[in-house]
C-alpha cells in the first residue's frame, strides 16, 4: 500500500512538487524569521555585553513607574563627584543621549526618522569604535556613525549642521565610528559629540542620562553596586551592574524590534495560510482523481484504514520532506532578509 502511495507521488511529479513548494515557502518564511530575529537578538546581546565590557555598574534615573513611558528627570552632574569618593570606585563618567536633527551638506535631515546625539565617554566606557578620523575633542567637533557617514557622502573635515534644543550648530566632522560591530543601530543616525556639547544640544546642562562606574581591582560588580547605592542614598536613581544593564537594554531592544519579528511572522503566516489552501486543494483534487483508484483498492479487499493510511502517508511524506527543505530554505533566507534590510538602511547585527 505504501508502494501505491509512493508510486502515486512519482506519477504526479508536478502536483507533488507544487504541494511541496507551498509547504517549503511557508516553512522557509517562518524559519527564516526566527533564524534572523534570534541571530539579531543574540548579536545585540553580544554587542551590548561587549560595549558594556568596561562598565561594572550603571546609574540611571529611576523610572517613576514601569508602565509610564515618560522619561524621568535626568541625573545631577554632582552625583559623579559623590561617586568618585565612594569606596572601590576606579572610574566614573556621565553620558547623555538625546534627539537632534543631523543635516547633510545640502542642509536636509539625513534621515526622515529620528536622529540622535550620544556623548563621547572616556575609556573604558566608550561604546563606539572609530574607524576613520578620531573622536571629537572640542565643542566645535562631531563624529558620525559610519552608516550615516557613508550614506550622506560626508568627508572628514566637512561642516555638519546639527540642530539641537538651542538651535543649529555648525560643527567640524572629525571621525566616523561603529557601534560595537554594526555601522548603525537599527538604521538610526547618531552624532557623537563631547559631553559638554551633547548636554547643550539636548538641553541638559549639568545633567546626565546615565553614569558608568568601573570598579577598582578586586571589587566585584555586586559589591560595587552596593557601594554606589550607599553613596547615592536618597537620590532618585536605579543602580544596576553592567551585565544587568546590558540585559535590560537587550530586553528594551527586543521590545523595540518585536514589531520586526511580528511583521515577518505575519508574512510567514500568510504564506502558510495560502499554502494550506493550496495544499488542501491539491489533496482534494488528488483524492477526487484517485477515487476510482481508492475504490478499486477497497474492492480488492483493502480496509478503510489501509486506504486512509496510504493517503495520510503520502501527505505526511510530502509534509516532512518539504518542511525539511523549508528549514534549509529558512537558513538561506535569513541572510537574504538581512541583506534586504541593509539595503533599505537598517543595518541589523547578525554576526558573532
Amino acid at each position, binding site marked *: 500500500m505504501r508502494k*501505491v502511495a509512493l508510486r502515486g507521488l512519482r506519477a504526479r511529479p508536478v502536483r507533488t512538487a507544487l504541494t511541496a513548494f507551498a509547504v517549503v515557502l511557508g516553512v522557509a518564511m517562518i524559519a527564516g524569521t526566527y533564524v534572523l530575529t534570534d541571530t539579531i537578538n543574540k548579536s545585540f546581546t553580544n554587542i551590548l555585553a561587549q560595549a558594556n565590557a568596561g562598565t561594572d555598574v550603571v546609574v540611571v534615573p529611576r523610572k517613576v513607574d514601569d508602565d509610564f513611558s515618560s522619561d524621568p528627570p535626568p541625573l545631577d552632574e554632582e552625583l559623579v563627584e559623590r561617586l568618585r569618593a565612594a569606596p572601590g570606585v576606579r572610574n566614573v563618567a556621565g553620558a547623555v543621549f538625546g534627539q537632534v536633527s543631523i543635516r547633510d551638506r545640502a542642509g536636509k535631515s539625513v534621515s526622515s526618522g529620528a536622529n540622535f546625539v550620544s556623548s563621547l565617554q572616556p575609556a573604558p566606557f566608550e561604546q563606539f569604535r572609530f574607524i576613520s578620523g578620531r573622536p571629537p575633542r572640542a565643542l566645535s567637533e562631531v563624529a558620525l556613525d559610519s552608516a550615516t557617514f557613508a550614506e550622506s557622502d560626508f568627508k572628514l573635515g566637512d561642516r555638519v549642521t546639527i540642530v539641537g534644543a538651542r538651535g543649529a550648530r555648525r560643527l567640524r566632522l572629525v571621525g566616523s565610528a561603529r557601534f560595537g560591530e554594526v555601522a548603525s543601530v537599527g538604521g538610526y543616525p547618531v552624532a557623537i559629540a563631547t559631553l559638554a556639547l551633547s548636554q547643550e544640544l539636548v538641553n541638559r546642562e549639568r545633567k546626565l542620562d546615565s553614569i558608568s562606574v568601573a570598579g577598582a581591582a578586586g571589587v566585584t560588580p555586586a559589591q560595587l553596586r552596593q557601594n554606589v547605592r550607599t553613596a547615592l542614598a536618597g537620590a532618585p536613581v536605579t543602580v544596576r551592574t553592567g551585565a544587568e544593564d546590558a540585559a535590560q537594554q537587550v530586553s528594551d531592544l527586543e521590545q523595540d524590534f518585536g514589531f520586526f519579528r511580528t511583521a515577518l511572522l505575519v508574512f510567514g503566516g500568510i504564506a502558510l495560510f495560502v499554502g494550506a489552501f493550496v495544499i488542501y486543494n491539491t489533496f482534494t483534487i488528488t483524492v477526487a482523481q484517485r477515487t*476510482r483508484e481508492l475504490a478499486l*483498492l477497497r*474492492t*480488492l479487499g483493502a*480496509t478503510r484504514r489501509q486506504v486512509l493510511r496510504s493517503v495520510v502517508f503520502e501527505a505526511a511524506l510530502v509534509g516532512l520532506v518539504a518542511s525539511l527543505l523549508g528549514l534549509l530554505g529558512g537558513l538561506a533566507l535569513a541572510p537574504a532578509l538581512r541583506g534586504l534590510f541593509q539595503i533599505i538602511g537598517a543595518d541589523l547585527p547578525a554576526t558573532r
Partner: protein
Amino acid sequence: MTAAAIVSTTDLQRRYGEGPAAVDALAGVSLEIARGRFTAIMGASGSGKSTLMHLMAGLDRPTGGAVTLDGMDIGGLDDRRLTELRRDKVGFVFQAFNLLPVLTAEENLVLPLTIAGRKPDRDWLESLVDAVGLGDRRRHRPSELSGGQQQRVAIARALVSRPAVVFADEPTGNLDSVASAEVLDLLRTAVDEFDQTVVMVTHDATAAAYADRLLVLADGRIAHDGPAGTAEEILDVMKAVGPAA
C-alpha cells in the same frame, strides 16, 4: 442449498428509494451457483443483473433476503469482515479501470496478496503469467498494454488469491471481438483448468455462449435459467424473454 453450490441467494431483494417513488431493482431472486461452473447473467439495462452481482459479491447490501457465499451468510458481516471476504473469497473483473496505472502489470496481478500482506506462490504466479500470455511485459505499466492484455491481467489478478468465486462485470464491454475472445477463453480456462467458479454479467450473447449456464433477469426477477448453448440459442432465449432484453 446443494453441497455443490458456492453462492446461493434466498428471496434476494434490493429497493432503491422510499415510499411511492421506490424502485425494486431486485424483487426476490433465489438461485444457486454451482462450484467450478461458468455462469452468465444477462438481461436488459435495469433488469437488475448488476445489482444481483454486487449483492452476491458483498459490494452492496440487500434490503431483503440473504446471500450465502462459501458457506457464510454475508448479510450479517460488518464492514471489516466484508472487506476481508472480498479480499480472500472473491475475485473481481470490471469493464474498465481494473488496474492501478502507477503499478506494473505484475504488481497489479499480485495486488490482492500485497493488500493482504501475503507472498504469492511462485509456481501459481508463473502459471497465471503464462495463462495471460504476459511474458516479457510483466514489468510494463497498464498504459503500455493493449485493452485485451489489461483485461487478462485483471482476470489473472482475480484468480491469484484462489477465491471461492470470480465475478466479472461486462469484462468484454470495452474490447473488440479478437480481444474479447482472448479474455473469454481465459475465463473458460480458469473454469476448466483451475477449477474456478466464474459468474459473468454481460449483454453480449457471444460472450454468454462461453458459459455453462445462462441466467436471464427481467424486472428484478429470474426470467430464464438453463444451459447456455450457442450464441444463436441465447439470442432466441433473449427474444422470448422480452423485446427490451
